[in-house]
């Protein structure tokens, strides 16, 4: 685990990523690998969250006062950090053909798969929580619809090709998982028995697939079939993310600690700390919606049945009144 940090760059780094949720320091697929990479390298850094720019390709970025390594330059944050001699974990492996092709596989097939699953393959609740829960409702909703459209264009999904593309994406993801599972075997890391950026990328993907995607997700199911990959993800999460070796900035939200989870059962209950303002307001809105639906059904039935006015016991708080 040798890192090469030049003395002149030993200024205090700040990592700007999207917010923490689902028990992870961040659940955004482009941000988590960078976080994990810095944790692998044991580099001290501050954490800062950007809550208002979900459609920016500049995030994640690492900065000091005047130096910035953006996500959309020089091949990504990790590549920039390597090139600028700040953190480099890949010395000795980054030219090996097998390492390069495994990286390419993760960054194309698996990256496409998680993009598909977040925006098209599921109901969008995970994506909403990761990206839009801190934006005012009209803005968040419009940006979400715009992003769904963009992802469909990027993945070449249209009405005619939807089924075929879905099958192709899942097939490739399965192949990738099987190949990675074979490559990993019983080792702790993918190459050279030490963490490299390949581990960072795959671990980021795996953790988001396992924790952030809903239970019914096809991709999640496919990953669960590879037991050694799941064990790898669990182990590294406990060692590097939950242990909190270099503690994040106190002003940022803390990552709740959790032990190895039981994958076979229902998804674990959310830790109490997760129930933030957005969660509460979402629950309130869901309650209103359910009450409205119930009342509408009752009114319909009463009109249909010709019975007299039904008394509605609205358990909603704000004096919700409906004249039947």
């Amino acid at each position, binding site marked *: 685990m040798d890192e090469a940090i030049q003395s*002149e*760059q030993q200024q205090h780094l700040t990592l*700007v990523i999207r917010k923490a949720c689902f028990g992870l320091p961040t659940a955004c697929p482009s941000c988590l690998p960078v976080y994990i990479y810095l944790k692998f390298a044991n580099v001290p850094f501050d954490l*800062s969250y*950007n*809550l*208002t*720019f*979900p459609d*920016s390709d*500049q995030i994640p*970025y690492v*900065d000091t*006062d*005047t*130096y*910035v390594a*953006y996500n*959309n*330059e020089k091949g990504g944050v990790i590549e920039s950090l390597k090139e*600028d001699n700040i953190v480099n974990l890949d010395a000795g492996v980054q030219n090996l053909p097998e390492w390069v092709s495994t990286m390419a596989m993760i960054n194309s097939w698996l990256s496409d798969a998680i993009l598909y699953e977040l925006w098209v393959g599921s109901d969008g609740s995970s994506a909403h929580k990761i990206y839009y829960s*801190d*934006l*005012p*409702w*009209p*803005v968040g909703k*419009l*940006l979400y619809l715009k992003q769904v459209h963009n992802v469909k264009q990027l993945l070449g999904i249209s009405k005619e090709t939807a089924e075929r593309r879905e099958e192709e994406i899942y097939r490739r993801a399965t192949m990738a998982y099987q190949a990675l599972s074979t490559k990993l075997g019983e080792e702790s890391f993918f190459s050279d028995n030490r963490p490299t950026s390949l581990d960072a990328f795959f671990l980021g993907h795996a953790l988001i697939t396992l924790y952030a995607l809903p239970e019914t997700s096809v991709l999640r199911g496919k990953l669960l079939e590879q037991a050694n990959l799941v064990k790898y993800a669990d182990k590294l999460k406990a060692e590097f993310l939950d242990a909190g070796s270099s503690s994040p900035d106190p002003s940022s939200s803390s990552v709740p600690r959790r032990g190895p989870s039981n994958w076979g059962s229902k998804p674990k209950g959310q830790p109490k700390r997760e129930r933030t303002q957005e969660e509460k307001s979402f629950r309130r809105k869901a309650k209103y919606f359910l009450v409205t639906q119930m009342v509408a059904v009752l009114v319909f039935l009463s009109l249909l049945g010709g019975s007299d006015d039904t008394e509605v016991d609205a358990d909603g708080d704000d004096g919700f009144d409906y004249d039947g």
Partner: protein
Amino acid sequence: MVEKEDPISEVAEDEEDYDEDEDEEEEEPPVTSQSRMRNDRERMEGLLRRMSSERVPLRVHDVIIKGNNKTKESLIEAEVQALKTVTSMQELLQAATIANARLQKLAIFDSVTVTLDSGPPDLPGTSNVIVEVVESKNRVTGDIGIFTKPEARSWSLESSLKLKNMLGHGDIWDGSLSYGWDQTSEISTGVALPRFMKLVNPVTARVSLLSQDWLKFSSYKEQALGLSLGLLSTRNHDLAYNLSWRTLTDPSQMACKSVRSQLGHNLLSHLKYTFKIDKRNSPLRPTRGFAFVSTSQLGGIFPDYRSVRFIRQEFDLRYALPLGFARAAINFGVAGGVIFPWGGGFVNTPVSLPDRFFLGGNSSPVCSLGGPTSLLGFKTRGLGPSEPRREVGEKAGDAGFDPSSERDFLGGDLAVTAFADLSFDLPLKVLRDSNIHGHAFACAGSLVKLTENSFRDLSFQKYRDSFRRSAGFGLIVPTKLFRMEVNYCYILRQHEHDRAKTGVQFSFSSPL
């Protein structure tokens, strides 16, 4: 036009001879035209004498509206409402003039005629009012020109299309496209309704898409999609509500740390109240009078707690003192503004970048009324808190770049400007006739940050030191197309990173 000739004489006859028929003049014994004219004149003089000495009681029996094919009658009736409650001839004349002016102001009629006629013969002491309107045939008008929006502080090319009275409610729809010198572009469409439902005041609504490029000054670009509603607009008061979705981006990827943290999407929902009183004799070269403008903005009144929250208050006070010779006058002005956020944890939150105060630019302080904005000698957004931009190079920290151009100006939370300007005519008659005049000025301004606990570091001494000063003299050339100023400006005091230059500078503004 109020026709005063025959109808009034008819009414006058009614006044004097209550039982007489309205057709009485046709039944007069045949007289020579001269004696008839003499009689009419005598009657008119008698009536005017009566009107000037005593109140002539009269009431309006009916208001008849003619000529409105598309316009809803309720709209015209509402504008001439006052006619129905008059009790005398004098009031009627006054109300008729006012009604005429109000209908003309709707700007949807080619001509408006208010005729006073005598009432039905069996109802003495009454009058009928006939309002005849000619609706504009050409309902679409286009406009293109180079104007200067005072708030944009630069030239802009504007083109607009107006559609009048599409729905018959006196509604005026317009679409406009404008492109500014400082790469501000805006496309908008709006509607103005003189009467919306039961509201007495005109209501306007506007949807606009605005794009502003501040990359050179603060390393960000701003796009805003907004809806604004004008709720109240009178001569002195203006109340408007604005809801907009604003996005800040940095395509140059060179922004400083503070700007980086502000990039993203925001929902802005604010109420803006402006009180304005301008008693100066001219907005461009005031030599007498005073003016006062106060603008208050309350942001964050959207039900969603995540919209941008702030309170912003600015004021501007001017006074012009004539000196009695060579049309000379001294203009004094002081303007100030403050903005701070509200809501939980407001002491630590920064104000959103585009809402802050920025000082600088070449606009003349005498002409631009509306808050602290200009300080001659300093470039646009050229003073105040600033931060170094991102360093890019072979090795970070490479030397050899101009420090002042590598900084982002972030604006401030508390801005104060003051100026004194002496304007005078030049000795040459030819210059005097074309209104070319000279002026000498002195300005001072300060822009500081208060939020994020910066106010704790601000002492009175430090605040006094934060004032920049400049002075100079120049020539003002007003032409039909624009107003040009050529100034020599000397910077008396500036701070290390300010963008200011001693020397000659030109500035252009709107001619009106």
